[in-house]
C-alpha cells in the first residue's frame, strides 16, 4: 500500500491525454505530510512483519508495542494537517499544496481528517484490547493484518477518485477476512471468515461493475469530475449511468451492513476474536460510511432523486431489522452478548444512514450529523466491547446472563458498561448519545423526512428495551448458583493483592486503559457535546 500504487491506479486513465502534452506531469510532486497518516501505518505494518521474523518467542509482545506506537504516531501526524486544506496527487497541472482546486486523488480535508482520527483511534483501541489476547494468536501476522487494514481504512476517507476508493476499501477489507479467521483450529472462526469473505467479495464485484459503468458514461474516475459530467449524460447512456450509480451504492451498502445486506454480521462478529468484532463494528462501519458519503454527496449529487429515497428506505429497514433481531436475542444463549452488540450495530447503521439520506433532500451539511454520530458511536461501542472483553476473561461463554451482578464484583466496569449502553440507547446520563440522536433527528426533520423520523423514534424505543434490560442485569444481585465465576475469582485471588487494577481484580492493564479511555471520552463528551457535534453544523468538504 504505497502511494505510488494509488497514483498509478488513479492517474492512469488521464495519462493517455496528458502525457502527450507534457512529459513533466508524469512526475508528480507529492505532499508527503498530507499522506503521512496512512503511510506511517502501512510502513509500520511492514516493519512489524519483518521484525516478527527476527524476534524470539518471548519477545513477541514488543510487536504489540510497535503497532501501538505506529498508530499513535499516525494520530499525532493528523495534528499538523488540522487546517484541512491539503491535497495531493492532482491532475491537470493543478499545483499541489494549499489552495489547489483541481481534481485531486487524495484530499486531507476536514471530513477526511475526522474519519482518519476515528479509524486510527478505533484501531488503537482495538490494539489495546488485543494486547492480552495475542498470546493465543500468531502475533506477527495479527499485528501486520491489523495495521494493514487500518492503513486502508485511513486512506479511504481521503480518496477522491473511484480507483483509489476501491483500492482503499480492499486494503481495509482483505486483511479483515484473515483477522476474522485468525483463530486457527476454531471451526466457527473459519466459518465466520468464509461468510464475511464471500459476501464482501460479491459486494466488491458488484461495486466494480458499477464503477466501470460510471467510468464508461463519464470518462473520468475523479469524484468531482464525475459530479460535473453526470449532469449532462448523453440520453442513450442515461440508463447505464443510473445502473452504475445503483450498483456502486449496493456495494457500499454491503460494506456498511445495511439491510438487506446485513446477514453476515452476527455470525462474523460471534466467530471473530472479540477485539476484531469491535474493530469491524467501528472501523469497518466507518469505512463503509465514508465511502458511501463520498460517492453519494461528492460524485452523484446529480442523481440525488435516485439515491435519496433509496437510502431513506434502506435506513428505515436497517434500523428496524437490527432492533427487532436484537430484541429477540435470548440472553442465556452462548455468546449472546456479542450477538446483541452485532445486531445493535446493524440498527445503529440505520441511524447513521438517516443524515446521508437527508442530504439528498436538503444541504450537504447533514453529512456532519453522520460524522458526529459515528464519533459518538465509535467511542461508546468500543467501550462496550472493552467491557465485554473484560467479562469474557472470567466467563468465556459471554452470555448476557454472565453480566448479572457485575456491579457487585467490578463496580467501575459495571458503571462504565451502563454508561455505554445508555449512550447507545440515547438516554441520560448518556447525554452525548442523546444529543447525537437529536442531530440525526434534526437532519431528518429539516429535510422533511418526517416519516423516517417517526420510524426512527419507534426504533429508539425498541432499542431502549434491550439496552436497558442489559443495564438492569448489571445491577442485579449476583446469582449464588453460578458455577464458574466464583472458581475463576478464586484462581485470581493471589494476583489480586499484587496488582489491583481500578476496574477490579485481575484486569490486564491494557484492558483497563481501554475502558478508562473510552469512559473518560464518553463522560467528557457528555459534558461538552460540542466537541463532536460541531461537525454536525459545518460543511466538512
Amino acid at each position, binding site marked *: 500500500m504505497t502511494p505510488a500504487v494509488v497514483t498509478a491506479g488513479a492517474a492512469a486513465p488521464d495519462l493517455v491525454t496528458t502525457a502527450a502534452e507534457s512529459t513533466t506531469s508524469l512526475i508528480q510532486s507529492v505532499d508527503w505530510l498530507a499522506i503521512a497518516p496512512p503511510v506511517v501505518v502501512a510502513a509500520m505494518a511492514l516493519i512489524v512483519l519483518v521484525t516478527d521474523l527476527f524476534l524470539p518467542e518471548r519477545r513477541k509482545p514488543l510487536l504489540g508495542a510497535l503497532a501501538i506506537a505506529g498508530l499513535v504516531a499516525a494520530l499525532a501526524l493528523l495534528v499538523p494537517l488540522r487546517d484541512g486544506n491539503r491535497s495531493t496527487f492532482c491532475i491537470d497541472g493543478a499545483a499541489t499544496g494549499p489552495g489547489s482546486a483541481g481534481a485531486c486523488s487524495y484530499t486531507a480535508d476536514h471530513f477526511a481528517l475526522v474519519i482518519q482520527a476515528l479509524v486510527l483511534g478505533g484501531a488503537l483501541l482495538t490494539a489495546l484490547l488485543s494486547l492480552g489476547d495475542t498470546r493465543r494468536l500468531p502475533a506477527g501476522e495479527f499485528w501486520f493484518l491489523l495495521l494493514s487494514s487500518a492503513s486502508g481504512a485511513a486512506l479511504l476517507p481521503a480518496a477522491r477518485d473511484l480507483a483509489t476508493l476501491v483500492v482503499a476499501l480492499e486494503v481495509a477489507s482483505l486483511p479483515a477476512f484473515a483477522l476474522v479467521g485468525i483463530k486457527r483450529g476454531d471451526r466457527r472462526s473459519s466459518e465466520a471468515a468464509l461468510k464475511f469473505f464471500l459476501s464482501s467479495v460479491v459486494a466488491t464485484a458488484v461495486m466494480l461493475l458499477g464503477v466501470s459503468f460510471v467510468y464508461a458514461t463519464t470518462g473520468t474516475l475523479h469524484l468531482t469530475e464525475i459530479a460535473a459530467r453526470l449532469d449532462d449524460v448523453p440520453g442513450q447512456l442515461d440508463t447505464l449511468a443510473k445502473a452504475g450509480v445503483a450498483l456502486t451504492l449496493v456495494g457500499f451498502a454491503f460494506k456498511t451492513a445495511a439491510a438487506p445486506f446485513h446477514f453476515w454480521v452476527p455470525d462474523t462478529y460471534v466467530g471473530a476474536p472479540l477485539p476484531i468484532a469491535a474493530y469491524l463494528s467501528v472501523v469497518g462501519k466507518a469505512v463503509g460510511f465514508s465511502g458511501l458519503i463520498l460517492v453519494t454527496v461528492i460524485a452523484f449529487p446529480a442523481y440525488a432523486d435516485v439515491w435519496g429515497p433509496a437510502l431513506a428506505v434502506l435506513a428505515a429497514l436497517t434500523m428496524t431489522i437490527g432492533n427487532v433481531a436484537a430484541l429477540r436475542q435470548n440472553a442465556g444463549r452462548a455468546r449472546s452478548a456479542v450477538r446483541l452488540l452485532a445486531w445493535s450495530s446493524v440498527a445503529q447503521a440505520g441511524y447513521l444512514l438517516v443524515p446521508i439520506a437527508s442530504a439528498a433532500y436538503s444541504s450537504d451539511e447533514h453529512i456532519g450529523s453522520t460524522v*458526529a454520530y459515528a464519533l459518538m458511536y465509535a467511542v461508546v461501542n468500543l467501550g462496550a466491547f472493552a467491557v465485554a472483553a473484560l467479562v469474557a476473561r472470567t466467563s468465556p461463554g459471554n452470555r448476557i446472563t454472565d453480566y448479572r451482578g457485575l456491579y457487585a464484583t467490578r463496580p467501575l466496569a459495571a458503571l462504565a458498561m451502563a454508561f455505554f449502553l*445508555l449512550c447507545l440507547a440515547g*438516554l*441520560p*446520563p448518556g*447525554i452525548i448519545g*442523546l*444529543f447525537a440522536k*437529536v*442531530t440525526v*433527528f*434534526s437532519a431528518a*426533520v*429539516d429535510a422533511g423526512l*418526517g416519516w423516517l*423520523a*417517526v420510524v426512527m*423514534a*419507534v426504533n*429508539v*424505543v425498541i432499542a*431502549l*428495551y434491550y439496552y*436497558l434490560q442489559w443495564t*438492569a442485569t448489571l*445491577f442485579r*444481585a449476583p446469582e449464588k448458583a453460578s458455577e464458574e465465576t466464583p472458581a475463576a475469582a478464586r484462581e485470581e485471588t493471589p494476583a489480586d493483592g499484587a496488582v489491583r487494577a481500578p476496574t477490579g481484580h485481575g484486569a490486564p492493564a491494557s484492558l483497563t486503559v481501554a475502558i478508562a479511555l473510552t469512559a473518560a471520552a464518553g463522560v467528557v463528551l457528555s459534558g461538552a*457535546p*460540542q466537541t463532536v*457535534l*460541531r*461537525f*454536525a*453544523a459545518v460543511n466538512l468538504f
Partner: protein
Amino acid sequence: MIDISESVMQFLLAFIVVIPLVGAVAALLPAPPGLKGSGPDQAVLRHGVTVTGAVLVAAIVLAAGFDHDHPSKMQATTDISWIPALDVRIHLGIDGISLPLLVLTALLTFLCALYSYFKLPAGPSPKAFVALLLVLESGTLATFAVLDLLLFFLAFEMVLIPMYFLIARWGGAQRQAAAWKFILYTLLGSVVMLLGLLLVGLKSGTFDMVALATDNGRGLTTSVQVIAVLAIGIGLAVKTPMWPLHSWLPDAHTAAPTVGSVLLAGVLLKMGTYGFVRILLPITPDGMHTFAPYLAAFAVVGIIYGSLACLALVRPGSKGDLKRLIAYSSVGHMGFVLLGIASMTPTGVNGALFANIAHGLITGLLFFLVGAVKDRYGTADLDTLSGATGAALYGRAPRLGGLLAFAAVASLGLPGLAGFWGEMLALFGSFDPADGLSRPAFLTFMSIAAFGTLLTAAYMLMVVRRVCMGEKREEPQLADVQTYEFAAWTPLVALTVLAGLWPAVLLGLTDPAVQKLLAGGKS
C-alpha cells in the same frame, strides 16, 4: 420579599439544579471520615436528607428573593451557550409559573428523603436509592427551570432511568412489568415530543422558549403549529397522563414504593402539564386552538373514566388496591388540569396551575398515608383491609385515620382546602372559553366535569367509610402516626390548608405570568 442581588439568585437557581447531581455522585462514593455515622446505610440516607434539605433551603430563599411584584418577568436568569452546533443554550430562569412547582418539587423530595431515612423501602442498597432519588430530583427541578426546548427535553428524559430503577428495584408485586410499561410509554411519548420540538426549533430558527413565547407563534405557519402540537402534545399527554394514554400510571403507582409514588404523582405528572402551559400555549397558539376542543374532550373523558374506575375499585368484593385507586383518581384530577389548559383563558390556565400544585400536595399526602396503612396492615387491598364492615382506622390508629379522612376530603375538592380552587377555576375557564373556541362544546364539557366532581366525592367518601370507619375488632392497637411521619406530613397538611384559605398567595404569582404567556409577551 427580601432583596437578593441578581447574581446570588442566578447562583441559587443553578445550585438547585446541579447540587442534586453532585450529591448523587457523592452518594455512590464511600462516606468521608467523620461523616460515617452509625453505619454506611445510615450515612448515605443522612446524606440524602442533607442534600435535599440544602436544595429545599435554596428553593425557599429563591422564593423569598423572587420579585413578587413582577412575577411575569423571568428572574434569576442564566444564559450561556452550551452546544452551538445545535443552538442549545443553558438558559435557566423562573417566573410565577415555574416557581411554585420548583418549591413543591424541592419540598416533596426532601420529605421523601426524610421519610426514607426512617423507613427505607425493602430492596437493595440504600446507596443506589439515594443516588437515584437525587438524579430524579435534579431532572424534575431542571424541567421547571430550563428555558431551552432541547434542554427541556433532556431534563424530561433524565427522570426516566431513575424512576425505572426505583420501581423495578424497590417496588412491590409486578414491579418489573410496571417499570417497563412506565419507561416504554413515556419514552415513546417523549421521542415523538422531540420531533415536535425540533420542528418548532428548526422552522423558527431558535430553541429559546422566551424568544419563542414572545414571538407567540408568528414565525410558524399554522400547519407547522398543528403538527408540532400533535407531536409535542402526545409526549406531554403521556406524561400527564391524559386518557387514553394513561394506562401506564395505575400499574406504576401500584408497584412503586411509597416514595416513588409520592414523587410520581406529586412531581413527575406536573412535568406534562407544565409543558402544555410553558411550551404549547405561548409558542404554538394556533395549533393549540385547533386541538383545544379535543384536548378538553379527552380531559373530561379522563375525569369521568378515572372516577368510574375508582368507584369500581372501591366496591366491596372488587379486590381494589388502594394505591391503584389513588392512581386512577390522579387521572381524574389531571383531567381538570387539562380542561383548564384547553379553555385557553387566563382563568382556566390559572386554575390548571393551581390544581397542579394542589394535586401535588394532596395526592403526595395520600400516597404517604396509604403507604403507612400498607406498612401497618401488610396490604393495600381494600377487601382484605376492611373485612366485613371496615378497617376501623379511627378506632385503631385515630391520628392516621383522621389524616386520611382529611386528605380524602381535600382531594374531593372541599371548599376551604387546596383541591377546591383549581377545579373551580378550571370549570369557570371552560364556562367561558377563549375566543374562537366553541362555547356550547365547552359548556358540555363543563357540565360533564362538574358531574365528575360528584363522582369524585362519592368514591372518596366510600374510601373513608371503608378504611377509617367500621366495627372495632378484637385486634391489637396499631402503631399510630410516628414522629417522623408527622414531620414528613405536617408541611403538606399545612400547605393544603393555607392554599385553600388563601389562594391569592399562589394565584398572585401565576396570574400575571399566565396573562403574559397568553398575550405573547405583549403585556
